[in-house]
């Protein structure tokens, strides 16, 4: 680009940048351009250098200030200083509007010492579940008529535990178990036996008839 002072309409006065019109001609990008001094005025010379310095960054003109690679490095450093270097990271694509807590590492426990030296033996074993059988009049009625045994059991036991305990202790299968808690705080279990066994025989075998 060469800058020619257009002095055609020039009036007298301060021949500064603003007062004189300058015609800027674009040259082809690859051309090496030296600042051309066409007019006689000193201001033009100053102006030329000023414009060329400004214009260098926006157009593709190569002006012999420095070698290309150094210049690129300088520009990259300037950009990094001003804008920071994290702008290049790719943003994660979100396909759902819901944000779910990201899953992090969950380590298993590896304690330095056991809190309890040995785990306890099971506290509610079959001997503890079934306390005593009942042989009251109504209990006897149940044995004879409904094929059920009536037991006082531990309060903490449930129907499944009562079934298992009966199996372990007396080798008898229970059909179903009904429980209630008596007013004196014990639990009573009505244990209906399967049809193939007779409750009366079992009671005799146990020994409480």
């Amino acid at each position, binding site marked *: 680009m060469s800058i020619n002072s257009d002095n055609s309409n020039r009036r007298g006065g301060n021949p500064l940048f603003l007062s004189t019109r300058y015609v800027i001609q674009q040259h082809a990008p690859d051309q090496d351009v030296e600042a051309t001094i066409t007019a006689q005025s000193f201001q033009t010379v100053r102006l030329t250098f000023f414009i060329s310095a400004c214009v260098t960054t926006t157009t593709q003109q190569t002006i012999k200030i420095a070698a290309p690679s150094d210049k690129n490095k300088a520009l990259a450093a300037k950009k990094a200083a001003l804008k920071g270097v994290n702008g290049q990271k790719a943003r994660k694509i979100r396909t759902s509007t819901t944000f779910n807590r990201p899953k992090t590492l969950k380590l298993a426990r590896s304690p330095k*010492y056991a809190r*309890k*030296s*040995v785990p306890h033996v099971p506290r509610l074993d079959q*001997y503890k579940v079934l306390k005593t059988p009942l042989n009251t009049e109504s209990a006897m009625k149940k044995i004879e008529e409904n094929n059920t045994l009536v037991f006082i059991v531990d309060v903490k036991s449930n129907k499944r535990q009562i079934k298992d305990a009966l199996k372990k*202790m007396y080798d008898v299968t229970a059909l179903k178990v009904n429980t209630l808690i008596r007013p004196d705080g014990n639990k009573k279990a009505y244990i209906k036996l399967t049809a193939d066994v007779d409750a009366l025989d079992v009671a005799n075998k146990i*020994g409480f008839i």
Partner: protein
Amino acid sequence: MAAPKAYELRTKNKAELTKQLEELKQELASLKVQKVAGGSAGKLTKISAVRKSIARVMTVITQTQRAQLRLFYQKKNFLPLDLRVKKTRAIRRRLTKHEASVKTVKQQKKDIHFPLRKYAVKA
């Protein structure tokens, strides 16, 4: 078997002790049933003896177990909490005897060079 004695039980190993425990418990269950069915006086007094025997066997089991565990943990850094000294919470948090007696080198030198002097007044 006339109520096992503790020193006899200690000679047995764990499997035998567990078996004996089972037998005692079964005996106790049958005694309780007989109590319901109106058992004789002899049977009823036996109940307390059997209960104490059960307790004796369980005591021997846990005592030998814990003794073995202490041997196992002797060389290790960290004991399980129930094998550690119990005392009281405050005592456990105190400085140990050694920690309390530790002195700086500076203090040791002072003590050596300027000990507490004892004087006597001549009568």
